[in-house]
């Protein structure tokens, strides 16, 4: 029987194994940071405050020393990988090296900031990271649900946008956040339904269909925004917002408590969904069937699993999740504006791939992208010399590296994107 062979790693790679190549790259980054960042950093103290502003306790380090020190740690990590480490140490060492690189960079930036601003408020940064990652988390989960059952979901952007729009519109009309939330879920599911019917029933190319649906969502919501919402924004585009919910106990954890557990209910919901979907996918009957349909639908069919039904259900669920993700904008943060998702759906798709079609992986990838986003904002605030556009590139750059095999072979579900035709 033909076993799909895309993911089988070469047995003998010679001296330049993946680990060594990554090590060499890391070594280069370390040298760059120790020398360049060290030279550019100033002798100001770089303060990382454990609060929302300059006040309070802080971790401090001399800018030049910090930049060089963390650079050296990166060099050490790179050297370790180059010398060869046991396989299970690869990811931890890589992680240490990359974090040290980022810290070296921050030491330079913070110490070189205009006087009086030589601090980085960690609580603020962490909160910002999670909030900016929110649509990515919901979007990537929608991708996981869809693609694990074998339907490619390029329409995440459209699902998020439709969710945001419906949430805003119906939330405003009814004056209830809950009606808005349900409407957002239905809005996302509506885009999903179109995707499901055309991809599963009519066997339309799923990627093309996804792109078309994104354009459709932009068009429809844009039209209604201009012709309906803007005629009476008071009535149609002023949805109530979820009030902040503080979680007892958790809110008192230092740093993380004030950063995460004193507010946004969508954040709780997102994290909960990651957990639920992860357990569901790998521990339950639903998950087993979903994965079997995404990997080998014919086998699933011969065992009495209703392939098409599983796919319809999962695609619709994906729409619900993404729709709620869209509502995390309009029912908590902003009022609706034209094309307000602005490409986040595509970054969510990148997070899905970077996270290897795994809910937890997708969460980590989303947070990484969220951090890059937040860092760009922060650097803007301290009027850094680094153009923020460079940081905005980071998610895409990371995805290219991921797909190229930096974090291990990326392996999509075997039947992802392949329509199932019975018989």
């Amino acid at each position, binding site marked *: 029987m033909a076993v799909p062979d895309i993911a089988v790693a*070469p*047995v003998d790679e010679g001296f330049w194994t993946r680990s060594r190549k990554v090590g060499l790259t890391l070594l280069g980054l370390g040298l760059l940071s120790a020398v360049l960042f060290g030279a550019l950093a100033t002798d100001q103290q770089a303060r990382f405050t454990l609060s929302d502003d300059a006040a309070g306790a802080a971790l401090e380090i001399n800018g030049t020393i910090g930049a060089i020190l963390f650079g050296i740690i990166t060099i050490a990590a790179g050297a370790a990988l180059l010398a060869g480490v046991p396989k299970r140490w690869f990811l931890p060492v890589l992680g240490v090296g990359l974090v040290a690189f980022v810290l070296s960079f921050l030491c330079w930036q913070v110490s070189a900031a205009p006087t009086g601003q030589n601090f980085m408020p960690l609580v603020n940064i962490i909160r910002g990271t999670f909030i900016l990652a929110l649509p990515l988390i919901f979007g990537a989960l929608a991708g996981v649900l869809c693609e694990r059952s074998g339907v490619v979901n390029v329409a995440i952007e459209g699902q998020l946008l439709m969710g945001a729009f419906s949430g805003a519109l119906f939330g405003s009309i009814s004056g209830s956040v809950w009606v808005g939330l349900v409407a957002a879920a239905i809005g996302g599911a509506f885009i999903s339904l179109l995707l499901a019917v055309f991809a599963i029933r009519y066997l339309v190319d799923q990627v093309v269909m996804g792109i078309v649906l994104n354009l459709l969502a932009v068009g429809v919501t844009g039209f209604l925004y201009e012709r309906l919402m803007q005629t009476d924004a008071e009535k149609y585009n002023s949805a109530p917002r979820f009030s902040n919910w503080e979680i007892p106990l958790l809110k008192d954890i230092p740093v993380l408590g004030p950063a995460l557990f004193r507010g946004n209910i969508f954040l709780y919901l997102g994290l909960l969904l990651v957990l639920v979907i992860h357990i569901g996918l790998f521990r*339950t009957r639903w998950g087993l069937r979903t994965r*079997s349909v995404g*990997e080998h639908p014919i086998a699933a069919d*011969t065992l*009495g699993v209703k392939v098409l039904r599983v796919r319809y259900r999962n695609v619709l669920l994906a729409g619900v999740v993404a729709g709620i993700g869209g509502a995390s904008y309009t029912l908590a943060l902003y009022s609706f504006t034209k094309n307000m998702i602005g490409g986040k759906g595509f970054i969510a798709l990148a997070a899905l791939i970077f996270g290897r079609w795994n809910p937890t992986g997708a969460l980590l990838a989303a947070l990484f992208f969220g951090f890059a986003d937040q860092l760009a904002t922060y650097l803007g605030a301290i009027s850094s010399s680094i153009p923020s556009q460079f940081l905005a590139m980071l998610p895409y750059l990371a995805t290219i590296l991921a797909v190229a095999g930096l974090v291990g072979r990326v392996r999509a579900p075997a039947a992802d994107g392949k329509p199932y035709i019975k018989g």
Partner: protein
Amino acid sequence: MEPGEIHALLGENGAGKSTLMNVLYGLYQPDEGEILVDGKPLKLKGPSDAIGAGIGMVHQHFMLVPVFTVAENIMLGAEQVRGGIAGFLDRRRARREVTEVSERYNLRVDPDAVIEDLPVGVQQRVEIVKALTRDVDLLILDEPTAVLTPQETEELLTVMRSLKAAGKSIVFITHKLGEVKAIADRITVIRRGKTVGTASPEASRDELAALMVGRNVRLTVDKSPATPGDPVLEVAGLVVDDDRQIRAVDGVDLTVRAGEVLGVAGVQGNGQTELIEAIMGLRPVLAGTVSLAGERIDGWKPKKVLRAGVGYVPEDRSVDGLVKEFSVAENLVLDIYDRPPFGAGLALKPNAIAASAKERIEQFDVRTSSADAAVGTLSGGNQQKVIVARELSRPLKLFIAAQPTRGVDVGSIEFIHSQIIRERDIGTAVMVVSSELDEVIGLADRIAVMYRGRIIGIVGPDTPREEIGLLMAGISPDVAHDAVTAPAADQPDAAPAAEKPGVADGSPASADGSASEDEA
């Protein structure tokens, strides 16, 4: 079907055996007619109905999810769950069930092994266990031996006997007469979608074959002794990797002389494909040399190799042999369309192409509605004849045929075999690679057996099948020879000795660590 009966369903490729069984398993819906179980008509809307009625099926292409564990594959569709609506999988119970069934029927499988790491023979065992955990009374085995070594086949037949002893009925679909005679209680022969006869296992091979094709065919190839001349193809120390950069051919030395047929036997996936592709210039040669009539041809482009006088029948005709959408006539000149008389400069000469096509269609007995019909509309046998006709229409020094009769009806097999021998008799060196041992034995003057990228032995065509079978399973020539020729006590000795490598080989790609998983 009676309880505890092994019923063989015999027919050529495309006779409708698999289709019939897919209907029985609920995958296809019948247009007419009905299925009776215990005298009551049964309506099957899908496979779950069939499973409910006690019908299980092991498909020709295994229905296993490669990235799942054995236990996950076995529970799929019939999951034991806890926690009500949440439906948490009860893995412990599933594992226990697998162990229980595999012990009861003596089918060793490790519930936690991942399918893609297992050799083919073990995957098949998983399929059988899967059916048995669903309490089937009737087990359908669709071409179960196609991918197995002779030893694995022997093991499967033992399993089938023990299932029969346990009161299960088995439908055994195959087109291999030997197996049918070895195990079946009753034989039904199908031809072109119709039952053409029922026979008992005592019927001779010839009778069965005649039933299958509807006329008498010769199973052996008529040929005179070979008169080998000078070496034409010389391969020395050849090393080739497969698509995954895994060593597939690992130091092969071969010589094919003018006027002889060298047969290459072996279980599929032991480097035969890569060997031929390397000779044809389709795959890079990493070490070693390939010479044609004294001239080094390794590193040449395929076109140059072909023009040097090599004919090539690729193993997968629909992918590598033909352009399905092109007409028969066009396919017949794919190799020399740019040469006179078929082409000149930028233009093709349709008249010359048509005339030559007409001639060759007649000469090679290609059954087609017209020379302009798309080749994809022809039957497998006639498609194969088109390829053979094309390749044999050039003057050749060397003719390489890979799986020349795979998926081809018996009538065409006979014709293609006679063409191969005719080519040999005019002094061409011929190399035939086939996973059908009978075909190799019938055609070859010498037989090279490949195992894990090496030629493990070269034997004469009169060597007993069992000995070649052991070679195919990687038993070295001396041991294989002793095992077969040793008196009386040979069977019990030979079987366990053959078992380990036989089970563990599968393909070189999956060989790593598979033996240990097998035991775990």
